[in-house]
């Protein structure tokens, strides 16, 4: 069976090669056909791989290494991509899938351009497939087949983490198609409004899942690792944050290209860099050059191949950029105080923030070259990344209504004073109620300011309140995303500075007070699951009339010989009462259990904020489609323009 998958993957490689050939020669129809065939073949290959996990076919080496018959079905399936080889297969599938999606959805009327984009995407798929088949082959047999597998890392046996990698890959690999579109546009020398309009949905198609993937990973770390934290500035997290930041920058700059034809060179550079940073991230975390808490299969050979891929694809695209960018045309002139100016400032901040994350992540490597060993961690990023991003967020509500070309911001004293007073009252309330430090008050004020700004922009655009729902989906998308950022900031600040943690040792029947909750240990019993056994504590928490039962566990997975912490969380409405079971101790003949108990105020706002950003992205993509429907008319087949023509803007309705 798996040999069929192996064969299909090889055929998919062949199809991608042919797709590249036709694409580069400008034959869109053939390139599209090959993209569809490759998708069919790779789906078959990946489907068969999943099937061997589902049926626990231990004659497949990968299944033996990562699965076990006692594992629940969902995690057998997730096990297919919960390892290096399988995840690379998924990577290839997504890469081919984006080519097929491009073949299906891309309708710019410039067939030459579309063919080239498909060809380049085909070339990226070829690279991924070669890497898959020759450096990390998941289709290999094991002879003789063992009777039982080694099991999946129990940390990964979790619904959040089962779908976290596919989401991330949709993001990372999605940027590969944006990259392909950028390279094709550069070859044609036309990065104009049409290009931006065609590319923007694909940027969103990558950025939205990437946001969700990061949020899922963060949420998983929060409830599974048992330390109450949700972001650790680990290299693996930074590796996903950098393309996300560049994607966010790109989403802002591509609007200028789409609406005004401006920022062409910068937008296309961001499109190339977003993908380069995706590969760079893969290289940093899978080659072992950086130390991370995340246990990836580390292999220097794979590392050098990834680095070679980065240099080949990134180098080619950036060389193309160096050659073609000077011929790209800018948009119409604009003044510093204008929508363009504001978006330029936005991009400067996003870019510097990305470089800051990169610097902090690779600085230990640079220092090693001079013989020093050092660490760069949370304190560094909190003191550099956070204030730099705050700069962006303070400005957002002020500039979001600015006009294109030239803006004439008016000062509304009355409004300013009333908004300021409103936010001030809420902040004081927060400081007083939650006993936050004053610095946190500034953060909360910033968050409220963003929330106000998001609502204000909707109202301003709608002019009258009832029309608010008639606004284009795009405007809603933008405002939802900005609202999400505001909620995220409030959640992050309040959780970080207002959280309460305590490590306690309890005997059965004993109580302890944590953040106003009286927590009592009822008992600790053994529990058993399909592939684990556990100590499960029963805690009751009371505060006034409210009460909750919490059942934190300490699990042991015999197949993987590994313990895990299963936290128990009670949502109080304002925050999480979070408990993790620690170790057992015998003191004077009595059994005591240690617990870590946290109170994390407003933590859900963090994840909800990111979810709103992703939802905003979905709306923004939908809005783009609506406009396209009115625009698209059957276009006659035509030759590509003899030479790139400067983009012209459409004047607003006269």
């Amino acid at each position, binding site marked *: 069976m798996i040999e069929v998958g192996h064969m299909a993957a090889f055929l998919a490689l062949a199809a991608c090669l042919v797709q590249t050939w036709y694409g580069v020669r400008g034959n869109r129809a053939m390139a599209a056909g090959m993209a569809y065939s490759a998708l069919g073949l790779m789906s078959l290959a990946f489907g068969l791989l999943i099937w061997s996990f589902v049926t626990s076919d231990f004659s497949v080496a990968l299944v033996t290494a990562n699965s076990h018959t006692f594992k629940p079905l969902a995690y057998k399936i997730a096990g297919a991509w919960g390892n290096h080889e399988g995840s690379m297969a998924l990577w290839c599938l997504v890469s081919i899938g984006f080519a097929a999606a491009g073949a299906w959805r891309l309708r710019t009327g410039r067939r030459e351009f579309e063919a080239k984009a498909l060809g380049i995407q085909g070339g990226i798929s070829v690279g991924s497939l070669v890497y898959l088949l020759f450096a990390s082959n998941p289709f290999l047999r094991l002879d003789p087949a063992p009777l039982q597998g080694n099991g999946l890392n129990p940390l990964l046996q979790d619904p959040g983490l089962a779908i976290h990698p596919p989401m991330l890959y949709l993001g990372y690999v999605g940027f590969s198609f944006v990259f392909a579109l950028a390279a094709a546009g550069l070859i044609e020398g036309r990065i104009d*409004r049409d290009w931006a*309009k065609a590319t923007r949905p694909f940027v969103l198609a990558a950025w939205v899942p990437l946001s969700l993937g990061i949020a899922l990973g963060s949420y998983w770390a929060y409830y599974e690792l048992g*330390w109450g934290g949700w972001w650790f500035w*680990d*290299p693996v997290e930074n590796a996903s944050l950098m393309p996300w930041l560049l994607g966010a920058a790109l989403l802002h700059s591509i609007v200028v290209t*789409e*609406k005004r034809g401006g920022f062409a060179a910068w937008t296309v550079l961001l499109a190339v860099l977003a993908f380069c940073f995706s590969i760079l991230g893969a290289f940093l975390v899978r080659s072992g050059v950086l*130390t*991370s*808490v995340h246990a990836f299969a580390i292999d220097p050979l794979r590392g050098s191949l990834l680095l070679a891929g980065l240099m080949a694809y990134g180098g080619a695209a950036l060389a193309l950029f160096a050659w073609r960018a000077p011929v790209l045309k800018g948009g*119409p*002139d*604009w003044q*510093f105080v204008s929508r363009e100016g504001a978006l*330029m400032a936005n991009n*400067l*901040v996003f*870019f*510097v923030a990305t470089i*800051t994350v990169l*610097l902090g992540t690779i*600085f230990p490597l640079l220092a090693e070259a*001079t013989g*020093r060993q*050092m*660490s*760069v*961690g*949370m*304190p*560094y990023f909190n003191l*550099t*990344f956070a204030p*730099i991003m705050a700069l962006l967020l303070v400005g957002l509500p002020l500039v*979001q*209504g*600015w*006009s*294109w*070309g030239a803006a*004439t911001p008016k000062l509304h004293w009355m409004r300013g004073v009333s908004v300021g007073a409103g936010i001030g009252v809420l902040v004081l309330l927060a400081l007083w109620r939650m006993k936050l430090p004053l610095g946190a008050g500034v953060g909360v004020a910033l968050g409220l300011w963003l929330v106000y700004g998001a609502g204000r922009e909707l109202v301003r*655009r709608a002019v009258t309140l009832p029309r608010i729902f008639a606004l*284009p989906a795009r405007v809603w998308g933008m405002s939802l995303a900005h609202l999400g950022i505001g909620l995220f900031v409030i959640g992050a600040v309040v959780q970080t500075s207002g959280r309460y*943690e*305590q*490590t306690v040792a309890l005997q059965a029947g004993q109580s302890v007070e944590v953040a106003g909750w009286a927590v009592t240990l009822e008992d600790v019993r053994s529990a058993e699951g399909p592939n684990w056994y556990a100590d499960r504590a029963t805690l009751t928490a009371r505060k006034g009339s409210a009460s909750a039962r919490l059942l934190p566990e300490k699990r042991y997975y015999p197949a993987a010989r*590994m*313990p895990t912490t299963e936290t128990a969380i009670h949502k109080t409405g304002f925050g999480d009462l979070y408990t993790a079971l620690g*170790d057992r101790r015998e003191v004077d003949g009595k059994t*005591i259990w240690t617990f870590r108990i946290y109170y994390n105020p407003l933590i859900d706002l963090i994840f909800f904020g990111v979810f709103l950003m992703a939802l905003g992205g979905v709306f923004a993509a939908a809005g783009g489609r609506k*406009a396209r429907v009115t*625009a698209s*008319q059957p*276009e006659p087949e*035509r030759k590509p323009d003899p030479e790139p*023509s400067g*983009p012209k803007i*459409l004047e*607003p*309705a006269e």
Partner: protein
Amino acid sequence: MKRFLCLFLLPLLMAFNDVPLADPALEARARALMDEIRCVACENEPISQSGAEIAGDMRQRVRLMVEAGESDAAIRGWFADRYGEFVLFRPQTTGASGLLLWGLPFGGLLMGALGLALVFRQRHKRRGGVEIAAIPPDAFDGLPVSNQVSDEQAGN
């Protein structure tokens, strides 16, 4: 090997030494330090978030030193003396590398803003001070954007 020890010896000998300091202000200081000190037997974790027993020892040492009235700098220095600056998640601000690491983000932002302003001024001058029309941000929303326009441009 270290990782092996970290994982498997964990349950064997876990002394319960995470007793918070009585004074909440001192405890808060100790907590802040624990977030900045790296567990030496684990992969990239601060001692505040590590289950390794040596991380527990290090937490206890931080609390002892805070209680004994040592300054934050002295405590960081104590660990750095024994484990190198590797053990500190907050890198030094001094020296060439400190300047590069801490200065580049803010310097980059400043330089970027200055550079863009200069480029913008040049470009603006070159094009002449023509009055620029203000176009409301929603002017293009829902309008067919450009295909027809560029088609016309292309002479179709």
